[in-house]
């Protein structure tokens, strides 16, 4: 394995496939030729990439829940419930945590236990264990496009199985499904494995089948400064594009300051398109996804509805192509299907009240956009720099050195020196920049913003702010004021 940002040749790819498909018995159900034929018959309204393109063209924001249970029939029931009772525009299938760790044997146990106890003991849908047969059964029994949503460092087999089953979108990426989700998996390995997933999507594209890919924007969901997650998203977009991916959805997790959130989504789309063009990927179609608040939720359901709505509204005003929906059960556990559907309905109501309404450009919005733009440029150009022009190699080094540093990332490969905190308007700033490659201007700006808050609250600007900010939303406030 020698990681390089260059398109995997068909030869290499097919060699790798053999190994991948043998990782679990259901691998042999995947027949690429037959899969191409199957996918060619998927109607437009069931194709994820096409539905996103249509939404972007029409300027509407689609709503997508997260959901998945262990057993096949229950999962199909759940998907239909969310589509019909919730009004979901796009369907997910959240994959369980054992599958994410490629521990398919434990999935088997989880499935058996779930059958025996009559309740799902798995926290998601074990797609690999259910195989192409099971996944197609899901696809053939729903009325909206399907996407796998997971958090899997090595999702090669999973990707093979879901795409062959008519699921036309796959979430994840070499950074975003490693640092927040794994502890011991090297970045090099994950990037390499995600090149495979991207190459698979690219292969389908070559056959005229549109497959959507979506880097996971929110990362740890906890006080991630926009330029950190935007940089990761853009890098993963460039890596995907190199492997032939055309439909790319870039994500951002709500921070809570309306102007910063709108700015982040706008700059994300703008810079992604610029970078893709700059590096010669001319026919990519970029859409955006806004994640409703990804940090700790309030336990009270009424308050949770407030948090859900505020996210939907921001998504609409930012002009995001879709929004990922939380539920009133978020603080407690995997939601019941009823709670999940109610989250979608709240979201859809909010979205449709603001359909066509966008946040107008103002001095404040421009300033915020410009800050995020500059910070992101610093990060990405440094990544390319340390990679000596190769962005894949650069990413490995950048993470090692803390050029990319994801707050609270559990991975031992994450430097973890950077610390974020909210400023006096609730925007997320770099409190301890660690090794982030910022200019003095940027560092001063971040500091100034945080000092404003310190002064207002008459407190020192330090890590205590970060801790207070982490708890704040679950306790009913955006900013963890002293």
């Amino acid at each position, binding site marked *: 394995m020698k990681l390089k940002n260059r398109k995997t040749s068909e030869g290499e790819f097919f060699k790798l496939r053999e190994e991948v498909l043998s990782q679990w018995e259901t691998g042999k159900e995947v027949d690429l030729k037959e899969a191409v034929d199957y996918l060619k018959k998927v109607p437009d309204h069931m194709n994820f990439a096409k539905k996103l393109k249509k939404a972007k063209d029409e300027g509407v924001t689609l709503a997508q829940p997260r959901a998945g249970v262990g057993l096949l029939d229950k999962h199909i029931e759940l998907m239909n419930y969310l589509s019909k009772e919730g009004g979901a525009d796009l369907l997910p299938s959240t994959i369980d945590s054992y599958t994410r760790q490629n521990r398919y044997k434990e999935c088997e146990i989880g499935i058996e236990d779930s059958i025996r106890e009559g309740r799902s003991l*798995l926290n998601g849908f074990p797609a690999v264990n259910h195989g192409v047969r099971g996944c197609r059964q899901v696809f053939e029994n729903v009325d909206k496009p399907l996407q796998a949503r997971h958090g899997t460092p090595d999702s090669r087999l999973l990707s093979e199985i879901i795409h062959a089953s008519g699921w036309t979108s796959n979430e994840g990426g070499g950074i975003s499904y490693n640092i927040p989700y794994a502890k011991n998996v090297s970045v090099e390995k994950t990037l390499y494995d995600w090149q495979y997933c991207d190459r698979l999507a690219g292969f389908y594209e070559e056959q005229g089948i549109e497959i959507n890919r979506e880097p996971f924007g929110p990362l740890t969901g906890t006080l991630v400064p926009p330029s950190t997650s935007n940089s990761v998203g853009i890098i993963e977009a460039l890596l995907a594009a190199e492997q032939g991916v055309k439909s790319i959805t870039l994500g951002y997790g709500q921070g809570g300051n309306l102007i910063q959130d709108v700015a982040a989504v706008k700059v994300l789309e703008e810079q992604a398109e610029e970078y893709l063009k700059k590096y010669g990927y001319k026919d990519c179609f970029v859409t955006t996804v806004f994640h409703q608040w990804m940090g700790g939720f309030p*336990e009270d359901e009424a308050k949770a509805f407030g948090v859900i709505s505020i996210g939907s509204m921001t998504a609409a005003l930012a002009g995001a192509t879709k929004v990922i929906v939380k539920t009133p059960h978020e603080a407690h*556990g995997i939601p019941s299907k009823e709670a999940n559907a109610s989250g979608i309905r709240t979201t859809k109501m909010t979205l449709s009240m603001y359909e066509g309404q966008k946040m107008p450009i103002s001095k404040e919005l421009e300033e915020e956009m410009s800050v995020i733009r500059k910070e992101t440029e610093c990060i990405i150009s440094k990544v390319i720099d340390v990679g000596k022009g190769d962005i894949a190699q650069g990413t490995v080094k950048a993470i090692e050195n803390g050029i990319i540093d994801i707050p609270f990332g559990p991975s031992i490969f994450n430097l973890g020196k950077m610390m974020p905190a909210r400023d006096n308007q609730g925007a997320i700033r770099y409190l301890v920049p660690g090794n982030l490659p910022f200019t003095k201007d940027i560092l001063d700006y971040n500091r100034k913003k945080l000092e404003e808050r310190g002064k207002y609250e008459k407190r020192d600007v330090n890590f205590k702010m970060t801790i207070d900010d982490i708890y704040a939303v679950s306790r009913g406030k955006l900013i963890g004021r002293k």
Partner: protein
Amino acid sequence: MQDKKTIVLGVIGSDCHAVGNKILDHALTEAGFNVVNIGVMSPQEDFINAAIETDADVIMVSSLYGHGEIDCRGMKNKCVEAGLEDVLLYVGGNIVVGKQEWKDVKYRFSAMGFDRIYPPGTTVERALEDLRADLYKEHKAAV
């Protein structure tokens, strides 16, 4: 507070939720405990080995992602086998799948041998209070 007590802290199973773990580490250390944090994605064995090595008084297991029930099975037995029968076993986070009746959940984990079982949203203050009660018998509270 009397002598410094040792707590083994970690997130069990394939669970990657790191934020609560980092905050617990910070807060328990600040409160004067000797915290041995084995971090996220830790199998039962890692908890037990750490507890043996550090002569721990408490093992605090976090489980957030919903597989807590599967991951915690048999842990008490392993502790007993390893000679850790007196080490307190706490568990907290979002320890089951979904929003369930708390008394049922508590009953199941109690039957598995856990000494203290915490619902979602437990504050650090609550944990500290119980730790002090259990370790220093300052004010013994009913479980």
